[in-house]
């Protein structure tokens, strides 16, 4: 892994680079606000913060078309913001308000929004693989050139669904990109205790598909890797496994305490994806003090407005208990009855 930000700008314009920067800042500020609300007042959401991993969701989503789909993993606020879910709706979700995703009935960090190309996943780690294969199957049924990116962590790659799904996507040559965010821990179990291989990407070989290792704290490297895998998928050449090496700077959830070494935390904070990209943008004169300040002030304002909206929103009403369960039915006395 290189210590330095790659300078692969490729087809990206100055505007693109600043948008990537903005998306990472928005994600970081949003997560910091969630953390602070959690400490100050407590929140219904069990926060799985993506601080330290922002480059992956931001870089990957930027490589996608509007009609592509993603299946987020559990630590991917960057994806929701990048795909255009408003901070206000997300924050309402964090507070379990009726204005949030699924009217507050489902945690926002696993939300789905089909109009924005986001598929909901369950809270069961590694169960999202088959859904992503299904998205690829639907594109192939309809003959479109859409792709689906399936995000997951290192721990999920030990699930049977990982094996079954990569194999199934491979034999059907489906347009699915399996994107691993390897942050080296499943809660507090290190990958060294859960697998005997260094790199999850090598598992691709057993399914006859390409596997690539990427510096997951390098937003441009992530962008280009997903871009290339998407080109491949759209050309009908099938799935790719991408392994982004990264690190989470927070515990698994804000409800858990973890004991990791100061040395390790310090090492990775030196590789902070935002810090590295900021330096890169300064070095190449894409960003200066004024623009940085402007983006941060605007983001602060947006997050404050999101909190205000979420706090002012009501909780879901009692009538919501029996809504959105079956299509053509109603509930009487807690019982499913046909209309």
């Amino acid at each position, binding site marked *: 892994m290189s210590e330095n930000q790659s300078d692969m700008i490729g087809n990206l314009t100055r505007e693109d680079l600043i948008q990537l920067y903005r998306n990472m800042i928005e994600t970081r500020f949003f997560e910091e606000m969630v953390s602070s609300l959690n400490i100050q007042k407590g929140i219904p959401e069990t926060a799985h913060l993506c601080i330290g991993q922002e480059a992956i969701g931001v870089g990957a989503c930027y490589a996608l078309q509007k009609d592509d789909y993603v299946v987020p993993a559990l630590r991917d606020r960057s994806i929701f913001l990048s795909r255009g879910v408003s901070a206000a709706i997300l924050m309402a979700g964090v507070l379990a308000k009726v204005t949030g995703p699924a009217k507050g009935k489902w945690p926002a960090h696993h939300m789905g929004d089909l109009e924005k190309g986001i598929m909901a996943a369950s809270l069961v780690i590694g169960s999202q693989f088959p859904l992503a294969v299904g998205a690829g199957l639907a594109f192939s049924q309809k003959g479109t050139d859409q792709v689906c990116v399936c995000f997951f962590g290192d721990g999920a790659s030990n699930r049977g669904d990982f094996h079954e799904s990569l194999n199934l996507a491979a034999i059907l040559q489906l347009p699915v990109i399996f994107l691993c965010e390897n942050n080296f821990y499943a809660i507090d179990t290190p990958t060294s205790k859960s697998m005997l291989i260094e790199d999850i990407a090598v598992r691709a070989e057993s399914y006859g598909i390409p596997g690539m290792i990427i510096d997951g704290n390098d937003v441009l490297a992530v962008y280009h890797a997903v871009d290339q895998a998407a080109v491949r998928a759209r050309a009908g050449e099938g799935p790719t496994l991408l392994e982004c090496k990264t690190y989470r700077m927070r515990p698994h959830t804000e409800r858990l305490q973890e004991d990791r070494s100061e040395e390790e935390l310090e090492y990775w904070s030196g590789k902070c994806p935002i810090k590295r990209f900021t330096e890169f943008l300064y070095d190449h004169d894409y960003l200066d003090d004024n623009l940085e300040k402007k983006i941060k002030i605007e983001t602060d304002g947006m997050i404050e407005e999101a909190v205000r909206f979420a706090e002012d929103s009501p909780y879901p009403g009692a009538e919501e208990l029996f809504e959105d369960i079956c299509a053509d039915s109603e509930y009487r006395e807690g019982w*499913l009855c046909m209309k």
Partner: protein
Amino acid sequence: MHEMTYREAVQEALIEEMQRDPTVFMLGENLRLRGGVYQVAKGLADQFDESRILDMPISESAFVGAAVGAAILGTRPIVDLMFSDFLPLAMDQIVNHASKMRYMYGGKASVPLVIRAFFGAGTSLGCSHSQSLEAWLIHCPGLKVVMPSTPADVKGLLKASIRDNDPIVFLEHRLLYSLKGDVPEGEYLISLGSADVKREGTDITIVATAYMVHKALDAADILEQQGIDVEIIDPRSLMPLDWDTIFHSIQKTGRLLIAHEACKTGGFGAEIAAIASEKAFGYLDAPVKRVCAPDVPVPFSPPLEQLYIPTKDDIIAAVREMVS
């Protein structure tokens, strides 16, 4: 009307719906060459190409989950799961995904998915190829469960299930595949949640499912000769359940017996008995009884397996105890 087997009725429903709607497709193991283990889909591969009938590797969780994903994005998959004993392999995708997606999207997603599976004992296949697991499924909000007993019902209910916008587990008793009966030609739909009175009677209500419907009908013929007039109700879909039809029958007969092939504890019969005691207690003239399999694994050896399976005689004995 034309006479056909239960197997042919399933096939007719599949062909009609696949011809009618290009978004309907089938996936499962050994489909294209064989048409599934019981050859229900035999010959369909001649009519539908590999994009409509897909052979799957032995990866039940992946292909059931893939069907969920594909259903959310605008297609109507039909999964042929083979043995219903394979349900546990895909249970995460069924319980945590298929049946919860509408809710997780706040009503903005549908999962129009049918999972077909055959079930039941009687072919000496052992305890992980012979079970009746429907009770697990009705305990999962968001999931519908259908269990037809006749060729006409299986056609009408399968066509309706394929057009339904919710996930459905569609359970076919393997010993019914060769059963013959009259089936309406062409468009024939049966609403989910509509029970059918298979025999009218005044002395006792038997709620029976799948193959047990036929054993109950045989028992009723014998009981009639003994002066007992039996009413038989087939719920046809266990979820949603047409309680009203059962209730009206209990009001008339004052007695309720439930007959299913699954083992007793925590079974569908327990639920019907519980609802009856909550809502029809005042109409009951005798305690509710159940004719079910015992709480043991399904035995392999044929004589033992026959002891396990609830019979017509078990129904007759139970009815005679209740109507004395």
